[in-house]
């Protein structure tokens, strides 16, 4: 999909308040993410992956779901945009990027899984979870995020195929941001689109403009209704562009063509939505300031909490099994004998 139209255009039935909330959360996602990036630069966080370019996809999808019944399985860029699923999501993300084990624990009742690093591995989990809902006649759908790159893994295809057979209530949301690190999509696949891959599974695949939060919202809403009606999965390819380095460890100038980046910057999903709401008189500079400040403060708090969270140095022995093996108990005792009981950070 070549860069083209520059404002969200979809029809929808969202209230003005909801529209403003979408933009607020998109801005929030970018603020959180930018701060995470900077924390890494200051040596206060580990490698992390910026959200820039994905905000409309995450927030649009999240608002099409019901956080009390539906589940989200992220890849690794999404947590900053999933505020709607629980205020605490961002606290957990702050723990995650600062290398605290608690970063993997999204507490009940938040229906969000921890970030997944092993690409595409979360897709079979999503199908299993959707199958589990189905088996227990529990209302709800499962939405799983994955990248254009992740779509090349066997896990994606095996899971898509099985989901088709099960007619499981699952939505496959492929975030096509043009790149898998340095690999452009045309080296990733020769398929006409990522949406086309649904033909291999026997359910619908659709492509949407991933810079258009309303288009994403509409597509995910439709897929959700399909799933709830028992009609099975949908594959949605949301097309956008990675507007930041792959991670804090990457230098995209080695491979992203300047002109391409420039073109897509003009289609920045936040800009587009801001333009729309401004033109409808639903957004002004004060709103902008407030959205930024709120997010800034929230992230500040999350980071404070994360940095002051105690970390037992031998915490890796916890949560391996429900009950540790005798061997682990011996190892833990040896650990403490060597490093001392009180060691921590």
């Amino acid at each position, binding site marked *: 999909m070549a860069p083209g139209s520059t404002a969200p255009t979809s029809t929808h039935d969202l209230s003005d308040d909801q529209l403003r909330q979408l933009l607020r959360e998109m801005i929030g996602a970018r603020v959180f993410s930018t701060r995470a990036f900077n924390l890494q630069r200051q040596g206060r966080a580990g490698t992390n992956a910026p959200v820039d370019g994905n905000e409309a996809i995450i927030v649009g999808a999240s608002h099409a779901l019901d956080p009390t019944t539906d589940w989200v399985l992220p890849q690794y860029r999404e947590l900053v945009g999933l505020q709607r699923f629980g205020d605490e999501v961002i606290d957990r993300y702050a723990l995650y990027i600062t290398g605290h084990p608690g970063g993997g624990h999204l*507490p009940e009742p938040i229906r969000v899984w921890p970030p997944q690093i092993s690409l595409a*591995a979360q897709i079979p989990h999503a199908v*299993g979870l959707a199958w*589990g809902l189905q088996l227990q006649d529990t209302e709800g759908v499962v939405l799983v995020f994955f990248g254009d790159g992740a779509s090349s893994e066997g896990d994606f295809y095996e899971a898509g195929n099985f989901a088709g057979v099960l007619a499981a209530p699952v939505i496959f949301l492929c975030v096509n941001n043009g790149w898998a690190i340095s690999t452009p999509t045309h080296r990733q696949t020769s398929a006409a689109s990522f949406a086309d891959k649904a033909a291999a599974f026997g359910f619908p695949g659709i492509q949407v403009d991933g810079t258009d939060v309303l288009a994403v919202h509409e597509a995910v809403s439709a897929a959700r209704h399909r799933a709830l009606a028992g009609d099975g999965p949908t594959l949605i390819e949301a097309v956008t562009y990675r507007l930041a380095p792959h991670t804090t460890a990457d230098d995209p100038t080695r491979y992203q063509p300047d002109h391409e980046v420039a073109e897509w910057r003009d289609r920045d999903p936040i800009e587009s939505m801001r333009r729309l709401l401004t033109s409808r008189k639903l957004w002004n500079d004060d709103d902008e300031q407030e959205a930024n400040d709120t997010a800034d403060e929230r992230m500040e708090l999350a980071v404070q909490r994360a940095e002051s969270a105690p970390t037992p140095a031998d915490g890796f022995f916890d949560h391996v*099994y429900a009950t540790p093996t005798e061997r682990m108990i011996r190892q833990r005792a040896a650990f403490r004998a060597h490093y001392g009981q009180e060691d921590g950070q």
Partner: protein
Amino acid sequence: MTDTATTASMTMVEAINHTLHREMARDERVVVFGEDVGHNGGVFRATDGLQAAFGSRRVVDTPLAEGVIAGTAVGLAAAGLVPVPEIQFLGFSYQAFHQIAGQIARLRYRSQGRFEGPITLRAPFGGGVRTPELHSEAIEGQLANIPGLKIVMPASAADAKGLLATAIRDPDPVMFLEPLRGYRSIRDEVPLGDHLVPFGQAREVTPGDDVVVFAWSYMVEVARRAAEEVAGEGIGARVVDLRTLVPLDLDTIVQAVEQCGRAVVVQEAPETNGFAAEIIALINEHALWSLEAPVMRVSGYDAPYPVGRLEDRYIPDQGRVAAAIRTTVATR
């Protein structure tokens, strides 16, 4: 087989089937799935009758894809179910290693306790029955190096029942490995009522004080026969069935070495870094001064599991184990 009888004679595969029936009846969260496990009842009939008894929602024929069989178990577990997937042959668990080692083993860890992984992944393995490639490979040593898994390898029909029931009720992921060669050839008395064998408790199969032979799965039977053979020569070989490799019954291992002073470990796997190495390392750490001879390993060889004409001499047999026992006892 009636409920009033205390025990019944069963083959190992019958005991497994019987246990799956009982566990599915006991706990409606249990779901069984895999290739050909449903309508056909499994290629070895381990899941025979389950679909008729519990329906095609709880006993499911999956597409032919081990990765997603293992991977969906993670999601099912998170949904509150108790997944009992089957991998048709353990060698094909390699197709699912990223889900087994990277995901199943650490579901609890990644989520810091939010999600449990009460998954029992059943798979047959082991040689001696002329199966094609990748049906026989004994890869328990590789699995044992993956933290978060439990490794269970029954050697009798009764244990197959008791350990499988424990596995299914265990809140953590269990690799439940079943010896192909023992499916029909191993037969013993199986308790008909509730029967749970705890993990981490080895079983003394034959008494003896001259040498201890550690084995698991079908090698227990081979070791038992070798012990019988050398008994005629006045050698008392104590055969110990480890039953579960993770968790491991270190106390029984150490005690047996202290009492016998000599030990042999038998495994079907290739020698290099099979689980026998771990047993020897533990003996070195915990009972070195009791050793009157080096611990001997009787293993498969450091070559891929071979084709039919060659397999009988690849797997440890009674003669090789007996020879190792004799050598060990003769060392001074």
